[in-house]
C-alpha cells in the first residue's frame, strides 16, 4: 500500500463523533486515522508525511491540552485543531497560545473544520519544506573546507577581498578563490543569496 500524501489524525473518545468526523474529512479526499484516546495516538506508528491532528479537549486519561503540551515537549510539531463541547475563553487562549491552528466548539460547521484542516496541513507542509531546505543547506555547509568556513562570515558581512585577506593573513587572490568556491558549493546564485542562506543557518555576521 502506497503512503498517502497527507494524513489527518482524529482523537475523540466518542466513537460516533469520531466516525462522523472521519467520514466528513474523507469526503474531501483526505486520508484519516482516528483514535479514542491520547495514549492510542501516541502509541501508533505515524507515517512521516504532512499531517495534522483534530483533537478533543475532554478525553479519558490525558486531556487534549496535556497531549498538546507533551507533543511540544517531544518536539513533535504537528498542527492541532481543537474541538470541544464547552470551551471557555481561558481554555481557548491557552490552546491558541500553545500554537493551536483553530479552536472549534461542538457542534461545528463542517466547512469550518475542513478549512481548518486545510490550513493545518498547509502549515505542516510549509514547515516540513522549510526544515528540508535547512537540512540541504546543512549538508552543503558540511562540504566547505575549514578555511572556507572561516571566510564565510567575513564574506557575508560585506568585507572586500582585500580586507578579508588582511584579516586571515592570505593573498587577495586566494580569498577570491575561496569566495567563488563558497558560492558554488552552497549553490548560491549571488552574494545576497548566500547572505540569506547564512541567515537561515544562523551564521552570524562578523564585523571587521
Amino acid at each position, binding site marked *: 500500500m502506497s503512503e498517502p500524501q497527507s494524513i489527518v489524525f482524529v482523537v475523540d473518545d*466518542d466513537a*460516533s*463523533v469520531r466516525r462522523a468526523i472521519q467520514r*466528513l474529512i474523507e469526503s474531501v479526499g483526505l486520508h484519516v486515522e482516528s483514535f479514542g484516546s491520547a495514549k492510542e495516538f501516541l502509541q501508533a506508528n505515524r507515517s512521516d508525511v504532512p499531517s495534522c491532528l483534530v483533537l478533543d479537549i475532554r478525553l479519558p486519561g490525558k486531556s487534549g491540552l496535556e497531549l498538546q503540551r507533551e507533543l511540544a515537549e517531544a518536539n513533535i510539531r504537528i498542527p492541532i485543531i481543537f474541538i470541544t*463541547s464547552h470551551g471557555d475563553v481561558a481554555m481557548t487562549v491557552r490552546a491558541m497560545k500553545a500554537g493551536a491552528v483553530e479552536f472549534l466548539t*461542538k*457542534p461545528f460547521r*463542517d466547512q469550518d473544520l475542513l478549512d481548518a484542516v486545510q490550513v493545518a496541513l498547509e502549515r505542516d507542509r510549509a514547515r516540513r519544506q522549510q526544515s528540508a531546505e535547512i537540512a540541504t543547506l546543512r549538508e552543503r555547509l558540511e562540504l566547505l573546507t575549514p578555511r572556507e568556513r572561516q571566510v564565510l562570515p567575513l564574506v557575508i558581512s560585506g568585507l572586500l577581498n582585500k580586507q578579508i585577506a588582511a584579516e586571515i593573513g592570505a593573498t587577495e587572490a586566494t580569498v577570491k578563490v575561496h569566495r567563488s568556491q563558497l558560492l558554488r558549493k552552497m549553490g548560491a546564485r549571488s552574494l545576497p543569496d548566500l547572505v540569506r542562506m547564512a541567515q537561515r543557518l544562523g551564521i552570524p555576521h562578523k564585523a571587521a
Partner: protein
Amino acid sequence: MSLVMSSANAVMAGSYDYGEVAGSILIAVAASYAALDLAGRVTAASGRARLVWLSGGATAMGIGIWAMHFKGMLAFRLPVSVEYHWPTVLLSLVVAILASAFALYVVSRQKLDPVKALTGSVIMGSGIVGMHYIGMTAMRLPAITRYSPLLVTFSILLAILFSLIALLLAFDLREETKWTVPRRIGSATVMGVAVCAMHYTGMAAASFIPSSPANLSHAVRISDVGNNAIAIVTLIVLIAALVTSSVDRRASAEVGEQLRQAQEDLARVTRVVAMGELAAAIAHEVNQPLTAIVTNGNFCLRRLGGATSSPDELRAAITEIVGDGTRASAVISRIRGLLAKGVPKRTELDVNQFIQDVTILLRNEFTRKRVSLRTELACDLPSVTGDSVQLQQVLINLIMNAIEATCTSTNGRREILIRSAKNPDGVLVQVQDSGPGVEPSLANRIFEPFFTTKAEGIGMGLSISHSIIESHGGRIGIVPSSTGALFEFTLPADDASVS
C-alpha cells in the same frame, strides 16, 4: 447584786439607720438581678467558658449577698462601739460565694425537678443562713449576744423559702427572650426584698446584753468611709458582671447570626455548584451525539450536492444519525429518571402545613429583602401524596424567583402572595409577586432548560420544577395576572380523600 444583774442583763437598745437599710435593700436587688442574668450566661456557655462564668458569676453574686448582709449589720446602731473580727468576716464571704456557686450550678442544669429544687433551696438557704450567723459572730462588742430560738428558726425557714423562689425564678428566666429584662427586674425586686426580710429577721433574733469588753484581737472598726466603700465596690462588681454578661450575650448572638448566614450561603453555593455540574454534564452528554448528527448530516448534504454519492455511504451516515438521535434522547430520559429517583420517599402531605414550613424556612430571606408575605390558605384541602423534599424545592424556587422579582420592581411595594385552593384536579398552589411580571412572549420559554432572564442564573430552576411537578402527576404554569408574575401548580388529590 440582783439589781445590778438585772441592769446588766438589760438588753441594749439598738436602732436602725434607715439610709443604710435602704442601701442594703438596693444591693440585695442588684445582686439578685445579677444572679438571674448570670444564670442565663452559665446556661448558654459550655466547657471552660461555663466554668469561668460559673466561678466569676458566683464571686460577683456572693460579694453582692454578703455586702447586703454586712451593710444590714452596719445599719444596726448600738450604743457601744462595735468592731469586727475580720477572719470571720472573710469566712462569711467565702460561704456566700459557695452558696452562690451552688445556686448558679443548680439553675443552669437542663432540668429542675421539684426534688432537686427543694434540696437545692435547702442547701442554698443553709449557706445564706450560715453566712449570716457567721457574720454575726464576727461582731466584737462589750456585750453577749443572745438569740431567740423562734426567730432564728423563722429566719432559716425564710432563707430556704427565699432560695426556693430564687432558684425557680432563675431557672425560668435563664432563657433570654424579649421580655426577659423587665421580668428579671421584677423577680430581682422580689428576691432582694426576700433576702432583706430574712436578714432583718435574723438580726431581730439577736439581742445584745452588755458585758465585759470583747477580745479585740484581729478586730477592726468599720469607719463610715469603709462602710460606703463596701457598698460602692459591691455595686461596681455587680455592674461589671452585668456588663460582661451583656457584651458576651451580644457577641454570641452575633456569632450565631454569622453562623446562620454562613450556612445559608453554603447551602446556596452548594445548590448552584450542583446545578452547574448537572448543567455541564447534560451539555456534554447531549452535545456529543448532536455533534455527530450535525457532522453526518453535513456529510450527506455534501454527497447529495455532488455527483458522486453512493446510496450505501448515505445509508451508513443516516443510520448513525438515527442512532445518535436516540442516544441524545436517552440521555434526557436518564436525567428525568435521576430527578424522579426521590419518588419512593412519597408521603401524604398537608399542603397548607407544607406551605407554612417552606415560608418559615425562607423567613430570613423575606426579612432581609424586606418583602412582606401574605398567605391565603383554603381550609378544605384534600390531602396529596408527594416527595416533600422535591416539592419544597419547587416552592422554594418559585418563592425565591418571586423575591428576586419584587426586588427589581421600581414601585415601592414588595409583596408576595401565596394562595392554596381546592380545584377539580386536586390542590392548587399559587405564588404571586408585586414585581414587573413576565413578558407574554417569554411565557412559553421560561420552563425550558437553560432559559434564564437573570444575570447569574443558569436557567434550570423552573425546568427542574416542571419535571418534578410532572412526575407528581400535576401541572405547573404561569397565569396572566394584573400585577406581577403569577405562577401556579396543581397536585392531584389522593383518591381516598376525593369525595
